[in-house]
């Protein structure tokens, strides 16, 4: 089964979003770069996902994970050209995806940080909810110690990425694995 908030999950979401006829017909089109930082995954990693929309289609996306706390990611400044950036712990994102927590409840929490023009984002609530619904229908597992199917464990990942010091260049929307769809 696909592991939640991994590269495989994003790929499946992108495939479904770009093939969804209802989403395509939504008159308010998503445009711009949407970033999500998700901290402290079950495999001990922080993650960043980037989704770039052009007229309601995902034109590129990227994903990267590194051992938590990935300070470079956590300290990266918000780029004002992005439409939004959401940041929260993995457990909270999982609760949202499972429908155990409402977006409103998340927004009242100090653990969910939303950056960008909230009034514009409110105007995009309908297509964003549709995007969310499509992703929530992907069958996933939330419990995993490694993103890979093999037995690479959390400790091994942490050893591969031992540094917790900020790197010189903060991650951007196209640092890794960008893929035109």
């Amino acid at each position, binding site marked *: 089964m696909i592991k939640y908030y991994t590269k495989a999950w994003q790929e499946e979401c992108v495939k479904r979003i770009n093939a969804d006829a209802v989403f395509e017909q939504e008159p308010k089109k998503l445009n711009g770069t949407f970033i999500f930082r998700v901290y402290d995954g079950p495999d001990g990693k922080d993650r960043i996902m980037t989704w770039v929309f052009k007229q309601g289609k995902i034109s590129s996306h990227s994903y990267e994970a590194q051992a938590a706390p990935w300070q470079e990611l956590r300290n990266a400044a918000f780029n004002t050209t992005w439409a939004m950036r959401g940041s929260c712990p993995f457990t909270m994102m999982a609760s949202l995806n499972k429908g155990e927590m*409402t977006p*409103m*409840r998340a927004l009242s*929490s*100090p653990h969910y940080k*939303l950056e960008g023009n909230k009034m514009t984002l*409110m*105007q995009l609530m309908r297509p964003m909810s549709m995007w969310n619904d499509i992703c929530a229908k992907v069958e996933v597992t939330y419990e995993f110690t490694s993103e890979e199917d093999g037995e690479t464990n959390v400790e091994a990942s942490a050893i591969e990425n031992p540094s917790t010091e900020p790197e010189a260049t903060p991650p951007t929307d196209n640092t890794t694995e960008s893929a035109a769809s």
Partner: protein
Amino acid sequence: MGFINRNEPFDRAEFTFFVPTQIKYGIGKVAALGMELQVEDDLASCNNVMIVTDKGVLAAGLVDKVKAGLVDSVYEIKAIFDEVPPDSDLRIVAKCAKEINDLGINLIIAIGGGSVMDTAKLASLIGTHGGEVRDYEGGFMVPGKCIPIVAIPTTVGTGSEVSVGAVVKDHETKTKITIASPHLYPRIAMLDPEMVATLPAKLVAYTGMDALTHAIEAYVSTENQPISEALAFRAAEMIYDNLEIAVKDPSNLDARAKLQIASMLAGMAFSNAPVGATHAISHTIGGLYGLHHGLSNAVALPYVMEFNLESSPSRYAALARAFNVTQTGLSDLELGKLAIERVRNLKVALGIPERYRDLDVPSNQETIDKVTEIALMDICMAFNPRKAEFAEFQPLVQQVI
């Protein structure tokens, strides 16, 4: 650095400000309503009119004033829907919307306070686009233009005459449903101080405190920006200067006129810099126990100001100046505390109870936990300057209750 507002770094990368409502002000202005409508190109042919109001407004003769303003005009009043209760709900909206459709209404005149105006907005929405109110819950879910509304406020607090939103009660879940959309702005807000001249003192106090809450919460909102800031600050100052006078001296039309304008300014502000935790708590208490919205806000306001103070001390310090604190040499936190003290004193002067338990809201642990959990799910919490989890928010709710 300014004496009132600190010259802090401008931390908004971008913002939008939008209020499309035309504002017409004047003492006795409703007497010329027909003429005022007919000069508007888009309203000249909207002559199938429904008046939406409540029985109190009708009994006070305020609807008669509006009817008189339409005599000898092209506007025909097809119906007067006067069934809006103080705390309107989905059933009322549905009933009003059905009448709108049955009668082919193409212009709605809402005469009343927040409950009336919000009912009119949502009935206009359902009358135009069909479905149920729940289908449009949240922000910007309304697909297009609705039947135009002329809003004539008869209270001094709601701001709904110029606001983006509408709130009604879901009578089944006993929660409040909030809908925000640019299509819910009234086409015209007609402010006539004579329409608030006979408002009972108690309602002047409740609705005036509602407007003060709008002004303060917009001023400290996470989405505040210089335009909303200017509107909110001036509104707070006008309300503080006039509310007690307007309550204690009903004949003072000047004070009531200023409150009416301040309420409108605060409405414009919070439509672009939304309100916060006071409203989240107030919506919850209102939904569960039916308290008047303004009263409910008034009770919670100083407690929430205390809760938020350290998240934005300079904002509360500036509000102290709006509340006529003239002392110098104080820190922002000290000034902020004085602002809170002024609001508490105003509450006392207006005879507003200190806590919800004084208004028969249960004060047991179960109620506190329930109110906390529901309030944390209110959209307004997204705009409060201080975020909170249950453990942090519950003590605040406990204090207020």
